[in-house]
């Protein structure tokens, strides 16, 4: 059995390892087009901050890991996929046949429609190559403009602050991380960032970027303001990288549509991670979730099915954890709530503390928190196991911090009935 995996991110690497566990004899190759060993974009903020060497971003120790598992890693760009002939063509002109193909090509940053985006001072923050450019241009005392205060924008704020730049952030939404946090939580992040000396512009967009000479650019804002910058970073979201299978028989929507076995409309082609549009646990809809835990879950389940096991996914739970210059926030599932559901919250803006729980009947379906680092995972546990909280809901409505107690009392034998 020949398994080909296109994409050397977490979904691809976990899939390769899972295939090897299921079948000691099959052939497994991961094809990735970046020059580095398989690495994690999640680790880039810590690389920008000089906390780790570039090798600290590697998904696995590249010296021995892949060879010891007999997983071939090919550093080549894939030019074309032939689903009828079951082969892929590489940039060097060679081709490789497959029995099962996994597409784990991730996502690419979206380029906002702004004039001047092609100037050499403008970079996205997605690859190690981008990171090296940011490190080069983000010199102490220089002005930096970050376009987009979404997850990626927020997670690199601390690195930029620590590099000693003067930082301005421009976000189109009315708050920071609008797709992960509600008004109150997003508002806490904005206040926190302003206290850290960051110039935050929400409900604002960049109109144009123009060369201002001496290596500087001028950034024109929709509110009429103008910012001078030595570096502009675009972090305005990502889009599934489906280009390889466009025009083939594989059905696409926002990403590659996959069933609960991570199988595309072509039974020999699977997809996993940011490129896949699979079942969402909370809604049952097919959605792209560009997050690390979904990538590894997808990779594992795709591999089990590619190896002939019949394994159906119950759906991935959308969840995020974010460190914004030291203020930690997280959200899970339907954090914005459901129609007819109850919600409760504890909001203490002076201490930058917030927790919000969303119920559907007696079941927790969503949660978000700011300033909470202990036992946050249990929010996932409560949501994903759909525990009936009938006996605890009143207590949680009065004290939403008691989630761990609610979980323990509902799942453990506590020595009393």
């Amino acid at each position, binding site marked *: 059995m020949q398994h080909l995996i296109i994409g050397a991110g*977490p979904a691809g690497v*976990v899939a390769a390892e899972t295939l090897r566990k299921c079948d000691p004899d099959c052939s497994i190759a991961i094809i990735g087009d970046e020059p580095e060993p398989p690495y*994690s974009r*999640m*680790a880039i*903020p*810590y690389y920008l901050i000089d*906390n*780790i060497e570039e090798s*600290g*971003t*590697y*998904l*696995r*120790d590249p010296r021995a890991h892949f060879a010891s598992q007999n997983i071939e890693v090919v550093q080549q760009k894939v030019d074309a996929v032939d689903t009828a002939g079951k082969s892929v063509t590489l940039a060097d002109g060679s081709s490789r046949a497959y029995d099962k193909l996994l597409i784990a090509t991730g996502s690419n940053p979206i380029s906002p429609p702004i004039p001047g985006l092609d100037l050499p001072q403008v970079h996205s923050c997605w690859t190690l190559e981008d990171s090296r450019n940011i490190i080069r241009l983000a010199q102490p005392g220089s002005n930096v403009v970050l376009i987009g205060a979404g997850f990626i924008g927020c997670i690199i704020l601390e690195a930029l602050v620590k590099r000693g730049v003067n930082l301005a952030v421009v976000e189109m939404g009315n708050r920071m991380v609008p797709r992960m946090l509600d008004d109150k939580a997003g508002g806490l992040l904005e206040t926190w960032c302003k206290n850290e000396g960051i110039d935050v512009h929400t409900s604002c967009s960049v109109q144009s970027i123009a060369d201002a000479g001496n290596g500087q650019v001028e950034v024109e804002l929709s509110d009429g303001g103008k910012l001078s910058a030595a570096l502009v970073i675009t972090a305005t979201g990502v889009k599934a990288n489906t280009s390889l299978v466009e025009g083939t028989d594989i059905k696409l929507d926002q990403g590659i549509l996959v069933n609960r076995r991570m199988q595309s409309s072509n039974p020999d082609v699977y997809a996993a991670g940011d490129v896949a549009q699979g079942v969402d646990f909370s809604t049952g809809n097919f959605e792209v979730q560009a997050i*690390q*835990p979904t990538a*590894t*879950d997808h990779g*594992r389940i795709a591999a089990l099915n590619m190896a002939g096991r019949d394994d159906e996914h*119950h759906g991935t739970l959308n*969840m*995020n*954890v974010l*460190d914004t210059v030291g203020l*930690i926030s*997280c959200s*899970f599932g339907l954090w914005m709530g459901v129609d007819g559901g109850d919600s409760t919250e504890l909001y203490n803006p002076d201490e930058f503390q917030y927790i919000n729980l969303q119920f559907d009947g007696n079941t927790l379906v969503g949660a978000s928190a700011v300033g909470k*680092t*202990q*036992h*946050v*995972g*249990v*929010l*996932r*546990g409560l949501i*994903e*196991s*759909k*525990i009936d909280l009938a006996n605890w809901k009143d207590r949680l409505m009065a004290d939403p911090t008691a989630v*761990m*107690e609610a*979980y*323990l*009392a*509902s*799942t*453990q*034998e*506590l*020595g*009393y009935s």
Partner: protein
Amino acid sequence: MQKSLNIDPGKCTGCLQCEMACSYEHTGTFNPSRSYIKVFTFHHEGRFAPYTCTQCDEAWCMRACPVDAIGIDASTGAKVVYEDKCVGCKVCTIACPFGTINYSQATGKVVKCDLCGGDPQCAAACPTDAITYVDADWTGYDRMMASAAKSLPSAEANA
């Protein structure tokens, strides 16, 4: 022989000596807020429940880690955090559905129970045998099955 922590909440008096011992073993200070085992208090019932990582087979934390910073201690079976590799991204803290791997602001890394390399100090410190370190087979298969069925609906379907 694989051993595991056996926690009997009915015997716990809430003395918190396990938290003291754990924090001292791992941080060199008596600081329950930095303990990896936590005693939860149920005021209404007058009960206590010590709780920490069960070293579960699923190892959600290990699977979610983007930089291979969580591995298995071959001698104890514990899932352990390699501090030199952990970048502090916290993905494991939302991936673990039991809430037992947590970010430490003091170290900038995540922390979890490592069974103290095979000599768990919480068990050694517990004066009432609410926490014991025993042959894994003796921790009560039926109890674990019942707990799993309650907490993970999918476990019932697969049973």
